[in-house]
């Protein structure tokens, strides 16, 4: 019996960027024997193995409408991680994302793991936000970044795996430095082409070592 660790994950982002689609995809792709109760697409759970423990994601959706922004602190308080979603076809949504990051830095829980998800990467033809911008920004704030497609199930699993491992590392401070240097190495040697899979693989090996 592996220990179960509960991770509260909060979804932030504008309306229509596909927050709930990402979660639905993540939760539904996996066949779960014991279906835990959900609140529509607003509250879902999924348990995934990570290293030598199980991580149970408690995923809290938030209302993306601008008028409800002020209510967000209630939702993200006590979160282990926040997934901030933007639409790669909408520059505005990336703008909002930056505000969320700023707010989380100021008022969010300490050591919150931030993950940036650029959704709708299947529509890269009408892309408005270059991947490079997102990566630079993520690197600047120390967040995980992936481009996902809820529609085609691209990088959804990876997004949450990344959160898992980063969450794991965050709890073991001595490893944080190591992983950060590794990340830096990766980004230096391969500045533009760091694949998220590759990065995660590295992180995973770090976990194995410890």
């Amino acid at each position, binding site marked *: 019996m592996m220990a179960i660790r509960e991770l509260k994950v909060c979804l932030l982002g504008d309306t229509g960027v596909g927050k709930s689609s990402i979660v639905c995809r993540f939760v539904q792709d996996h066949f779960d024997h014991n279906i835990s109760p959900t609140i529509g697409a*607003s509250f879902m759970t999924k348990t995934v193995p990570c290293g030598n423990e199980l991580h149970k994601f408690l995923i809290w959706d938030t209302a993306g*409408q601008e*008028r409800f922004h002020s209510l967000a602190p209630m939702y993200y308080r006590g979160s282990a991680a926040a997934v901030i979603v933007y639409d790669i076809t909408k520059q505005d949504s990336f703008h909002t994302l930056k505000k969320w990051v700023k707010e989380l830095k100021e008022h969010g829980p300490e050591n919150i793991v931030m993950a940036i998800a650029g959704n709708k990467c299947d529509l890269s033809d009408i892309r408005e936000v270059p991947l490079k911008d997102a990566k630079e920004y993520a690197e600047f704030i120390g967040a995980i970044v992936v481009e996902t497609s809820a529609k085609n199930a691209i990088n959804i699993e990876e997004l949450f795996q990344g959160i898992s491992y980063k969450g794991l590392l965050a709890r073991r401070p001595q490893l944080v430095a190591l992983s950060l240097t590794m990340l830096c190495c990766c980004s230096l040697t391969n500045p533009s082409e760091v694949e998220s899979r590759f990065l995660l693989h590295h992180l995973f090996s770090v976990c194995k070592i410890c």
Partner: protein
Amino acid sequence: MCSSEEASLLRLEEVFSAALAHINSLVLQPLLLTEPSDAWTRECLQLLQQLHQSSQRLWKVTEESRHSLRERLHHPDSVGLESLLLLHGAERVLQVHIEYIESYTNCMVARAFQGAAKQRSAHWRDQRKVLQQFLWAMGSVSLEGAVGPVLVQSLRQPLTHHVQQYVFLLLSLGDTIRENHPTRKLVVHAATLFGNLQSFMSQALDEAMATEALWPTLSSRLRDELCNPADRRLLQDSRDIPVTVSPLRADRVLLFRDSLVLLQGHHVHTFDLKLVWVDPGQDRDTLHVLTPEEEFSFCAKNPQGQVAWQRKVTQAVRQALCGKKDFPVMGADPEPPEPPACRCEAYTFQVEGRLCQATYEGEWCWGRPHGKGTLKWPDGRSHVGNFSQGLEHGFGICLVPQAAEDKFDCYKCHWREGSMCGYGICEYGTGDVYKGYFQEGLRHGFGVFESARTASQPCKYTGHWELGQRSGYGIGEDRDRGEHYIGMWQADQRHGLGVLVTQAGVCYQSCFQADKMVALSVPLCLFLLLLELLRPALSASPNPSPFPGSSVRPPRAQAGPCPPQFHLCPHRQLGLGAFPVESRWRGVYGPFWDFVQAGCPGDQQEALLGFHVQSSKELRKSQEYLCCERTPPEDSTDSIADLLEQLPQHREPGALQQYLKKALSNSLHPLGKLLRTLMLTFQATYSGVGANKHLQGLAQEEVKQHARELWAAYRGLLQVALQRRGQALEEDEDAETRDLQVHRLVLPLLLPSFYPELFTLYLLLHEREDSLYSQGITCLSLFPDTRLLEFLDVQKHLWPLKDLTLTTNQRDSLVRDKCFLSAIECLQKMITTVDPREKLEVLERTYREIEATVSRVLGQEHKLPMDDLLPLLIYVVSRARIQHLGAEIHLIRDMMDPTHTGGLYDFLLTALESCYEHIRKEDMQLHRVPSRWTAW
């Protein structure tokens, strides 16, 4: 056929009857003619009158017997032998004889004949000859000498002779009847009875003679002191069988039928035999005698002497307790029956000390009050209750009169070895009342003191006591000033950290020393006042919105997160660190744990739980009548042994919940009693003036601690119960299971008891927010359903109005309180329960109702993302119009099972909270709504 014995019996009766008539006319009548000249003769006359009466009765019975015999002789065939009075009424005949003997010996001891005869000595001198002839006729040797002895003899002789003949004739009559005949048994029985009477008579006469002989050997003063009552007989004299007494000193020991007398010079020490216990000592020569106040031993010269004395005293005590002489007379039985060790008597203590002049009436054992009894002092003080070894022990009511008025201090308490110990209720003559625990006669542990309403400074104290003084954590209420002090006490004064709440609602925490405030750490009242004043100004200033991009709408007040200290100040909680919750009410739990650690002894149950009285009226009555109708713990179904027997039978979750529910609602159950006491403390702290929003934190953590403690208490009882059954003890549970049980099981059961006060505190704490929220609700309720849905940006395809074809006007006017009705009604049920878990379940059902409605509208299952759910939820919440939702939400969150954190219930509660916040904050925006939607 009649036997010759029967004829002789008839003759005997005829002769005796004649003799009695003769004695009556010759002796008794003349004696009764005596004029009473002094006290002694008056007394003699009285005794003689009694003798006369019993002689009359004796004569009557003899006549009856004679009559029955004659009948039998005349009609021997029709009248059976058993019809003889001597046979079927032998007991009655015997009784009359005994009575005669008693009154005769009374006269003899008092020398009544001599006394009466003295007055008319001339008459008696003339009669002497007649008397002597009479005696001679009765078969006695003639007596020469004084009149007295002749009289004595003449009254006794016929009787002894008569009884002797009875026995003789009855025995020979018995021999004439063949064996197995039923009348033979009767005859033998009668013969035995009269045989016993013979020995009884001779013993009575011996005793009387000894007593009569004793008086001249005593000084007249002693004689006067000892000769009353008239039926006092000497049973043993230390002159006959010498004994020495120690440690008391005595020249002479006299054992009378009713008392034991030690003579030392002119000093007389009399002990009532009813309160004398004889303990044959280890030493064969000594005999220990216990009396209520003295304890001494008799030392005989030899073992025989000791045995004789022991026998005599034991017999005398037994007969004194029976109130009559033995019949038949005890022979030289080797094992005479012992008198009972426990007796019920009254006694007034004489020796200087606590009990001097006090009268005890009740049960005794070995010279000490033991059992139930009443002790009354001459000053009016009295104690009714249980005693042990001479001291108050167990439940008792003590009344102490107040000097000035006709009022009493009434102590209804448990006592241990003479002092109050355990639970008690004291009602003082002044009207003050103390209810709580005592130790060694002083208030100690937890207790509530309430002064009379009429007192000059009405006050109430609920808390800890030490050696009669307020000490430790306690709540003091000053009714005059309306002040409420919550904090530490020492030596009856406020000392240490404390929180003071005034009637105006100002509340501050400070350090007290000797009843005086030494340092006002933060003059919070002023600080708060300042904040209240500044608040509107602060909120009016345009806050820089964290979302400049959203400039479509005017910047809303308080949109961004407020600076934390500003947010916290009105909610500042006092006393949180000052009074650690674990030790706050340890005086309440202390007696319980002592009880559990002692293995729950049944006799201490009442001292712990307090006695159960049906109503306060009865308690008052008990004071008036000095009795208390308690439900004795051993009789009720709730005796601790039964409770412990039942306890391990309910351990399955469902049964356990039922059991705990029952136990907590039963004030006779230790857990129920604990809860009652805790409710008392909670009410004392947080109701009235104590209902202050700054105390919410204190109250909240206290309730949770109570749940933990009660769970621990249950576990404690369970362990004792298992131990009693000889079963394996339960392992210590880990912290996680304990928390789970406490929150899932105990807290919901407990919460209803504390809910009113607790909820009031939450109400006060969230008053401002709640008023804004209800303003918001009022504004929103003006909207028709469609307008509201539109206003809340609910997507049109989710509107549950698909099946209605209405014009826009109709929609606006008609569709009011129609949409999502099931969800709204469901949410309204939230206030019908106090259990946080049930409230959360209501919330979940509400969500399911919304989901069901949406699915119906869309015709397919639809998973609502938060973008759609939140507006719908706001709609439902605003329509449900639950009052004080803020208080509700915070109460649920505080009392929620911590394992739910981050989970489904947490999410739902957060969603509800965000709706609440939105409605509250929307208020500002709503002011411009009418213009907005009229312009539509």
